[in-house]
């Protein structure tokens, strides 16, 4: 691989290499076997520590981070469940990077995932030439993690067929994987530090349920959307800056616009406005991550196609793409929101007025 070309998105351990190095240098608390950092240092890495110069990376639920870290120290795997876009994958990436020094051991769950992705496959040319051998064996990320005592991430586990998911059961309970092709006694035993972080999406519920045998081997943590609007706004602005910064794009007026956007997302997500009015929730995912996407696209439009001043109208135009993904009914729901709630607010502030005028022009069905 050519290392000179900068990656669009380097992994967490690369992005935060300096912070990780600082934490490791100052870390004198006891570490569980196989861990690169002590549990407290892992916590600092995720939740920030001003003294150590570490920024906060996960927002909204500090006790959840504690529970996740402690679960990973136990025999249980960690299962992160929640609505799409609630930063489950980010959390699993950060935990893996801090604990194992790498977040790259990933199995991506899909309908096409097979047992080979969880256990091992073969280099068929070598297999035919030499017969089954260690050299011909292609280890899965899981097997790699077991051998090196690291964390493997299993993304979207409920997208795999249950029989494939269940290949994890014996790995999690025995912490060993038999390799019968290499001989009757060939077993790969997990080194200390090995564990699994799986993520599952609640919107996929019913696609593939997990077996209760598998569920028992995990500790579940539910990641909820951020409830505090102020907090969410800060997060959106921070992530916007992270995305725009490297591209050298600057826009003005983003604070006020972010407020309108986050308010709108929170209203639509919870089905209740800050004023207490009820509304129909769209089926579409109204996550913080989506909000960041909308802000990003709106900012690019403002910067490249407009005068560089971000307005709520830019955001309104991007909203259509977010809301109309899943069901045509959502268009009507957004229309009702615009006609009743946004209209009311339009009289009170300029940003809401911009938003209202642009949103009214949308074709929402």
């Amino acid at each position: 691989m050519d290392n000179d070309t900068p990656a669009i998105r380097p992994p967490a351990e690369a992005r935060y290499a300096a912070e990780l190095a600082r934490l490791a240098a100052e870390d004198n608390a006891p570490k569980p076997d196989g861990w690169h950092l002590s549990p407290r240092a892992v916590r600092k890495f995720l939740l920030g520590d001003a003294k150590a110069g570490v920024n906060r990376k996960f927002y909204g639920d500090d006790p959840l981070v504690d529970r996740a870290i402690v679960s990973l120290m136990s025999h249980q795997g960690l299962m992160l469940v929640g609505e799409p876009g609630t930063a489950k994958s980010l959390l699993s990436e950060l935990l893996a990077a801090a604990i194992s020094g790498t977040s790259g051991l990933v199995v991506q769950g899909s309908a096409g995932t097979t047992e080979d992705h969880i256990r091992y496959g073969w280099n068929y040319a070598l297999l035919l030439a030499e017969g089954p051998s260690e050299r011909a064996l292609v280890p899965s990320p899981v097997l790699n993690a077991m051998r090196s005592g690291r964390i493997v991430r299993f993304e979207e586990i409920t997208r795999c067929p249950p029989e494939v998911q269940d290949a994890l059961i014996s790995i999690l309970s025995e912490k060993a994987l038999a390799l019968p092709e290499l001989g009757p006694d060939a077993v790969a035993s997990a080194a200390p530090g090995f564990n699994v972080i799986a993520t599952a999406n609640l919107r996929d519920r019913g696609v593939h349920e997990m077996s209760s045998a598998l569920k028992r081997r995990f500790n579940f943590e539910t990641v909820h959307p951020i409830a505090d609007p102020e907090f969410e706004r800060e997060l959106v602005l921070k992530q916007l800056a992270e995305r725009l910064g490297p591209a050298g794009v600057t826009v003005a007026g983003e604070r006020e616009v972010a407020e309108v956007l986050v308010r709108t997302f929170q209203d639509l997500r919870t089905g209740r406005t800050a004023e207490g009015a009820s509304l129909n929730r769209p089926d579409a995912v109204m996550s913080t991550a989506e909000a960041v996407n909308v802000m990003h696209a709106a900012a690019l439009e403002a910067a490249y196609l407009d005068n560089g001043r971000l307005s709520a109208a830019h955001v309104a135009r991007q909203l259509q793409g977010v809301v109309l993904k899943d069901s045509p009914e959502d268009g009507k729901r957004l229309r009702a929101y615009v006609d009743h709630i946004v209209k009311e607010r339009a009289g009170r502030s300029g940003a809401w007025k911009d938003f209202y005028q642009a949103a009214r022009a949308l074709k929402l069905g």
Partner: protein
Amino acid sequence: MDTPILHDKARDLWVVPVRHHSPVCAAHLERLIAEVRPAAILVEGPCDFDPLITSLCDPRTRAPVAIVSLREAGEGQRLRRAASYFPFCAHSPELVALTAATAAGTPARFIDLPSTAREWRGESEERPDRSLLGSEQGFTVGDYVTALARELGCRDGNEVWDQLFETRLAEDYWQGFFADVAQYCACIRGASDPADMAADGTLAREEQMRRIITAARGEVEGPIIAVVGGFHAGAIFAEDPGKPIAAKPGAGRSYLICYGMRQLDALRGYGAGLPLPGYYQRVWEARGDGLAGLATDLVTGFAAHLRAGKGETPPFPVIANAIEQAERLASLRRRPFPTRDDLIDAVRSSFIKDEIPEAGAPLLAELHAWLTGTALGEVPPGTGSPPLVEAVRTQARALGYSTEDGERRTRELDIYRKPRHRAASRFAHAMTLVGTTFADRTGGPDFRNDVGLDRLHEVWAVCWSPLVEARLIELSEAADTLPEALAFVLAERIAALSEQGKGRNALAAIDLFAAACRAGLGREAEAILGLIEEQVIEDPELPSVIAALADLILLRRGRDTLGIEDVAPLDRLTQTAWRRMVLLLPELADQGQDQVAGAVQALADLRGVVELAKSSAAPVDLALVDTAMAELLERPLEPMIEGAITAFALMGGQIAADVLETRLRGELASGYVDPRARLAFLGGVIMIARELLWTLPAILDALDDVITGLDEAQFTELLPYLRLALMPLDPREVDRLAEDVAARAGAAPGSLRIDIGIPQSEFAENLALDRELAEVLARDGVA
């Protein structure tokens, strides 16, 4: 620094800052008292509670208990009302201080404003369960605590408190501990608005505390300890020679009652005390043996609770993982043992193998309930609770009801076969009648709706709670035993009934009578019959007299269930009501157009009452009704009423069928402008006796003749009213009538019913297709 933080050497005064229900404060306070050996112990709490200190510290008293104070009786009320509570649990620093004082023979007293003081009322005047613990809101809300929580990585003010203080239970150095509490509380106070403190009475209360402390300083030699909420500690060191406010003599009254963990937790609504007292109780009990096994005890205890209560057995690995999780969380968060939040977090991670909705999971709710606890305290006899409470408690236990905890239980009572169960049922009915929340009947014979009179069992949900005792304490001013309380309440209710517009509500009186009978007060309840009689005699409305009659006959029918021993007074009353009804019947002739529907409904009800009277052999003169009906028929009536009365008379045998037929034909063929009026008579007949439609063929004959004589337009005009008249029929009756009509027209009985055999939707589609085809055919001229 001017203000001493813990000890004013010049006055030898220790002001000990505590948090209500905090085990760590209680434990350090024990150490402090043992070392300082005070000459007097002063405790924050209303000063009029002093006489109860002896009972409170009686070795037989078991916490949680509370001092309940009764408010002065309001205008027109005969009883004082339970107004507010001052609760203690085993780990209340206040109770620990008072107990230590009693044990050492040290004088002890409360130093806050009397419980009757205006300052206590504030905005919660209307709440029946007000707390007399000072508010501790500063510990849970406010910028200071929020900022501190963020800094420490805690989720709220209570976790901050746990992190900073509750974890120091095993320390020996109480000076350092209380100095830190004082410092912390001073910061909270510094962030509070002085205007609020004036408004909510805080400043007035602190003035009282300073004055009583100053007075006490003048009375005893040696160190004095004042145990107060941390929020006030810094404010009460100063000397104040003013005169403390004493309770107005006779204004309020206070008693010691058993209290419950659940209520203790509920009082947190006022911002006082730590949440989930059951958890802290366990910590308090485990303090002597070290807290190493706390997580194991709590997790296995909860698992056992699930097993016992829900029949769910958490697998061993889950339990082991939860213990491990709790201990590791504590260590990650730098705590020497798992605190409340560590434990909840551990159970959350390990026990629940699924998504947790934002509203929370049932298992977590169960954990909260378990950590709250259901224990009720105990107050020994003769120590501050009034005789009524003791009498009722003894009686409840004798009848097999538990007064040990606040758990809601179901009890099934075999009321006919087991005398003890019958007594227990009467007790439960009595407790309901006197207005306690002790028992709730969920199943059993129901006289009012005449269902289940043959049922042998009554099912009750019963729960002994502090609220039950509070109600009994209110009643204790009027009664020393349950029968006395019942008599008192009954008299009050009867008086209230007779005041509420006479003749208005015989039904409420009948309900009260039934309730009194079930509570075993048959004799006393007879007074109610007099009331009902008064009301019935003066009742000018026929419908309500008929409704009362129906209830009276049902009451008589259910006399065994209700435990009515002497039925004679009831019979007399029924006869009175019957006569009143007969007296009012002629008024039907004078009903205005707008009262017709109500009058016909009343007649329909009357027919039900007549049937009921016949079937239960009620001692009423049925002939009186027949005569009245016959007389009515002689007078000009609204057609619908006339139809109803004619049907009534026919059923009673006063007129022959052909009379009805002639009248019906006349009405149907009449010249009324409004076609509705032509069917009114038939409507009246059907309301009273719809069975005549098939038992009396003449009716159909008449209808048939009239309808066949109509042209299409006339028929269409009449049709809606015909349908309206037939509305009271149920589907089965409609079928039956339709068959009769079909047979009359020569069709086979079954031919009316079309059994389609295909789904509704398909049938509808076919019909549409059929129509379309017909249109096409018509258009093409092929039809």
